């Protein structure tokens, strides 16, 4: 099974360790992973700001890099959702459709495709899960608190396989952290307030680490935590699942 590794731009530039953890985790689980070089971005920052019409350059690049693979996996729910919902390229619609249907966020790839039921990871800490909205409400990584429907959570299931890891319970299980792409700068006041409130929920419930499936949200939370000089750290779920396997 040939898996194309999709490393979104800000992970590539700021959080290479998340890309590395994702790659080695997939390799340890027996996937044949390729990382198409020259990839940049899914186009979401522009599209969410109202500039979807500018994204065909990004779309074309994306199709060129990822066509013909069995699966495409990326450690970011938000970017994966964007591709799933919006990737179209004139003249290459078949390849684009294949990609839209075959792209997975890491946690859902592990649970739904690889059907992972145990991991040799160890992480003896108290961890809070930040459910990023696009992964949760968009990709369905976990049940949404608004719906009258049976609960489930793919990230939680995976984290429960990690030895020594203790999940903390939150007061608000799936409230948005306020990152929201360019929202984080155009609506700075509300964005930061939302982030602070999310952090307080984790801290009040004893989390030492905040983890999640989207580096963008974590980057925002980390920025606030560091400004607060807090000891609480953020880690992408791949880093925890990949720890000392």
């Amino acid at each position: 099974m040939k898996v194309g590794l999709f490393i979104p731009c800000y992970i590539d530039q700021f959080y290479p360790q998340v890309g590395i953890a994702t790659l080695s985790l997939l390799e340890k689980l027996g996937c044949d992973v390729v990382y198409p070089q020259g990839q940049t971005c899914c186009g979401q920052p522009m599209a969410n700001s109202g500039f979807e019409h500018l994204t065909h350059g990004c779309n074309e690049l994306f199709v060129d890099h990822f066509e013909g693979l069995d699966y495409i996996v990326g450690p970011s729910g938000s970017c994966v959702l964007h591709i799933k919902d919006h990737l179209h390229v004139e003249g290459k619609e078949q390849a684009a459709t294949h990609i839209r249907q075959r792209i997975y966020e890491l946690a859902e790839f592990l649970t739904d495709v690889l059907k992972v039921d145990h991991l040799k990871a160890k992480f003896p800490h108290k961890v809070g899960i930040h459910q990023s909205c696009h992964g949760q409400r968009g990709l369905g990584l976990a049940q949404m608190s608004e719906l009258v429907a049976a609960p489930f959570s793919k990230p939680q299931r995976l984290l429960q396989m990690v030895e020594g890891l203790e999940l903390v319970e939150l007061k608000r299980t799936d409230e948005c952290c306020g990152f929201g792409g360019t929202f984080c700068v155009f609506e700075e006041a509300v964005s930061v307030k939302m982030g602070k409130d999310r952090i307080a929920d984790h801290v009040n419930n004893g989390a030492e680490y905040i983890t999640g499936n989207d580096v963008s949200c974590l980057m925002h939370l980390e920025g606030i935590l560091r400004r607060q000089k807090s000891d609480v750290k953020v880690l992408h779920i791949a880093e925890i699942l990949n720890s000392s396997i």
Partner: protein
Amino acid sequence: MEHQHKEHSLLAEEFNANEPRVNWHDETLWWVRQKRDKMAWTIPEWEDLREAASRIKHNVLGNLHDYLLEFEKNAQANGAVVHWAADAAEHNKIVLQLLQEQGVKRMVKSKSMLTEECHLNPYLAEHGIEVIDTDLGERIVQLAKEPPSHIVLPCIHKKKEEIGELFHEHLGTPAGNADPKFLTAAARQHLRAEFIQSRVAITGVNFAVAETGEMVVCTNEGNADMGAHLADVHIACMGIEKIIPQRKHLGVFLRLLARSATGQPITTYSSHFRAPKKGQQLHIVLVDNGRSRQLGREDFRNSLKCIRCGACMNTCPVYRRSGGHSYHNAIAGPIGAILAPNLDMKEYADLPFASTLCGSCSNVCPVKIDIHQQLYKWRQVITREGYTKKTKAAGMHAMNIVLSKPGLYKTAGGIGRWVMRTFPAVVNNGLNPWFRQREMPEPPKESFADWYKKNRKQ
């Protein structure tokens, strides 16, 4: 971009100057959201009920023309007079004329977001007619000379102490008394006097049944009944999308409305108005005001399914932390942000951006409007029509140039870790809004792509 109002982000920033108050506002509304959750969970078929409501409204929107005519015919047969208003101005004129015919200078009105949308109160005031809002929350904001900040809970932004002060000033209650029970009783006394003298009563409409020509008005205070029954003339104002086909469909909507709105099983009063009493007049004003235009916008048509329950506001993490007034529109929150651009795209160009697109609104919506997707689509339309700030557009074009060329991206990234530089730069206000209350990520020694080259065989 010049606006009559400050933009949402600025108003929100002002609201956030008082953090304890933001916390209070957030907690108060979150509590309402939790009550809604509890109530929803008492109904195992909740999600089916939402689906049913959504489909009934789908049918209504597809056949609106016929249902409206059916409603008109039946209402007329019941003895009501039906008026059609193309826009807010026409609506206001019709109401004014009816009031002038009666020669009244003062009258009562129960809650109606439509009359807010049409700015009826100030219009009538200009013509020397005073409107007394009889919904307690609306009366409070009216006394404070403020617009409502929420469609169901109009004075949710006010603390009880502030209401006590207002009542002391306007209704003569003792200074310093902020006991909700006492204040409610005082308001009731005050409003009774108004009800009794008022010869005309205006009400809104929650549901208008095409099959029977009747209207249903939902209140918790019974103020719609009180006004309409005591007055000689009842004027019911409704948007044309309030139609439902048959009486039996009320069961679906009444079960959803109050549960979604306040977490009550049903509103205290669901008052049916069908025919005028002997000697009484019943006027129904059907208002379009942009609704047909919205109906013609395929991507945004579903917004007309809205039953004004306010659940999308209570759940919205941005609304809870920016307050209803930051939306500078009669209808705030997520639903306001998808309705307002239809009325004036330039004036409300900021609203679809006042969201993280988290999607919680669409999930609570009892008629399953795809609110967050419409927010995304409005962003595209507003940008295409040229209502985005020039600086933002320039930033986006620059970002696009870098992102669509791998070579450029590599250099730009290597030099400056461009993401963080590009994002804040698009705001272009001399400050870096990321950094104000957040640290920048520490730039790593190498990018993932560089690491990969060194560590994996090509």
